[in-house]
């Protein structure tokens, strides 16, 4: 998309900035007015930049005592009606999971940036990985829906950060922005004019009378309006299963109805949530599916393949979860084989294989802390076409 728009240097608004810098700029543009975080490599630059920029726009930055406190404070601020975000990396993302589930269940908008580094455990703090694809989707206990966005360039990090806030507000959901260490600290020249404006879709405010208002009674779109503390509604928010009143219930019918709605509010709004990019997929005999920095290499690999007469294409989910299944199926319609390069042992590949059942799906995995280079992807893609 914008990965190769680096010929703009010298133009007035061109800036050479890192991915984390773009994320901090995108947060302010996206209306973020509260950030709570805890230092962790390789995401700390986001916190550092927002500690400087938020007060100037009337916002608040706070460095909390730990990762759990950070996500808790973010959810608390959002419960107060303020667009809020935290940023972390693998170990911190693991620690935040219980409260991410709270935000999903209680339907509190918030944005969580996870800059992926090598794992498991402390792993390789300064090396890239893509090992949190499944944790981003399933990391908290219980069954819940979540939105996860995976940009592939510095410019797209900016755009997707803005979009993350708008989706969080619109769907009353936690939104995870997932990218890797290379993108976080890669500097690219970007032009930030024509940027998407913030606050396009604030959470729906409660409008009925306080006496009639039920905090989890959804409109036709499946999304309940949200009462702002101080507006007279005096509602109750809980992580316990609740009915429309917001108060705890274990009534099987009420529990099923509310949890089903939780899923349906994303399912029935996929047009507004799904996002992906295709590169030369129309006649692709081999389709490459990748995200983040690996997708950047894959885009180059498509060019290398085409130069050798191999008809390759790239499918790149930008909204990773919910996965754009129909778009992937359409992109893979002509493909004889699908290659999934990724910096883990097959998390994306497993999902692609599930969606494209019947098509040959192969992975190209790396867990060494190094990115995959275009020539490797091109060679493997060409071999797949030869039937090797």
């Amino acid at each position, binding site marked *: 998309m914008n990965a190769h728009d680096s010929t703009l240097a010298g133009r007035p608004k061109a800036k050479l900035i890192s991915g984390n810098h773009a994320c901090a700029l995108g947060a302010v543009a996206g209306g973020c*007015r509260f950030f709570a975080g805890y230092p962790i490599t390789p995401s700390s630059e986001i916190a550092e930049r927002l500690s400087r920029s938020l007060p100037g726009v009337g916002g608040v930055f706070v460095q909390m005592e730990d990762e759990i406190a950070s996500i808790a404070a973010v959810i608390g601020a959002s419960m107060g009606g303020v667009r809020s975000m935290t940023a972390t990396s693998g170990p911190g993302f693991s620690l935040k999971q219980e409260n991410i589930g709270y935000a999903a269940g209680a339907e509190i908008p918030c944005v969580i940036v996870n800059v992926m580094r090598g794992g498991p455990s402390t792993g390789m703090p300064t090396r890239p990985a893509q090992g949190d694809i499944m944790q981003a989707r399933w990391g908290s206990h219980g069954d819940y829906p979540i939105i996860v966005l995976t940009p592939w360039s510095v410019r797209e990090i900016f755009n997707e950060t803005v979009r993350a806030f708008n989706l969080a507000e619109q769907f009353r959901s936690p939104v995870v922005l997932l990218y890797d260490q290379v993108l976080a600290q890669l500097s690219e020249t970007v032009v930030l004019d024509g940027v998407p404006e913030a606050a396009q879709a604030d959470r729906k405010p409660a409008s009925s009378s306080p006496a009639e208002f039920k905090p989890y009674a959804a409109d036709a779109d499946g999304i309940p309006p949200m009462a702002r503390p101080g507006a*007279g509604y005096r509602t109750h928010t809980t992580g316990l299963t609740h009915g429309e009143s917001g108060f705890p219930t274990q009534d099987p019918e009420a529990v099923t109805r509310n949890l089903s709605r939780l899923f349906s509010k994303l399912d029935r709004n996929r047009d507004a949530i799904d996002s992906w990019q295709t590169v030369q997929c129309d006649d692709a005999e081999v389709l490459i599916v990748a995200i983040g920095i690996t997708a950047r290499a894959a885009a180059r690999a498509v060019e290398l393949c085409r130069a050798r007469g191999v008809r390759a294409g790239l499918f790149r989910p930008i909204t990773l979860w919910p996965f754009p299944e129909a778009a992937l199926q359409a992109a893979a319609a002509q493909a004889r084989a699908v290659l999934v390069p990724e910096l883990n042992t097959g998390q994306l590949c497993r999902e692609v294989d599930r969606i494209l059942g019947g098509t040959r799906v192969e992975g190209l995995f790396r867990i060494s802390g190094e990115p995959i280079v275009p020539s490797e992807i091109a060679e493997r893609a060409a071999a797949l076409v030869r039937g090797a």
Partner: protein
Amino acid sequence: MLIDQAAEFDVRDYLRKEMMPHFLCPGCGHGIALRALLWAVHELGIDKDRLAVVSGIGCAGRLSAYIDANTFHVTHGRPLAYATGLALARPDLHVVVITGDGDCLAIGGNHLIHACRRNLKLTCLMLNNEVYGMTGGQVSPTTPEALLTTTTPHGNTEPHFDACALAAAAGAGFVGREVTLNVPKLKELIRAALTHPGFAFVEIMSDCTEIFGRKNDLGSSPEMMMRQKSELRPTAYRDTVDMPFRPNHLPTGILAKNDRPEYGASYRRAAAAREAQS
């Protein structure tokens, strides 16, 4: 909604009647603590629309649902962290945290010490019933030594925490402790905490008659409350009796108070000064 504070206090004006009957056990001290809080809120004329109550998990955590205010029942141990975000984002709200001894001192201990250090304006009420009541009576950080719980069948061998000493050492602007036996006194302490400009920590000695009391043959609720009273050591004694912390001797009243700057105001002032420079 503003209630006429000159009017006589009627606890029903501050409760969600649709949530009754409540789920507390007979003899539990938590209801008394709740009444004292609401009484103090009434006397101070705090607008219910501007009152936010954040609570954690456990018996104490359940109290928020009964209060007719903006209430948030959050994850185990984290109410202070949620409240920190809420209070920083919305300085116009009056934020009160209700937590228990396990919620506040065990799983949430890190948040307590840093909330004390940070000194953001919050009122934290820790209802200490000396046990994990909701989960069936396991040992907590405040279970007295030698007493029985479902996980200390031979008697508790861990020393118990003095939450007020901890809060004071961590820098809390206001620290107090009271028992549920004397409700007007408890109300006065909570009232003083609510008006403190920084972080205020109040430990309320509650009693768990059904689970903890039964397990240790501590008698009925009145008997448990009288036992608490017999262990009191009024603050006034401190000047005359040099007594280091000893289990089963509870200093009560306002135990620590200081005028450290409130965090939210300090943050906004420093940020504004920097903005003015640049």
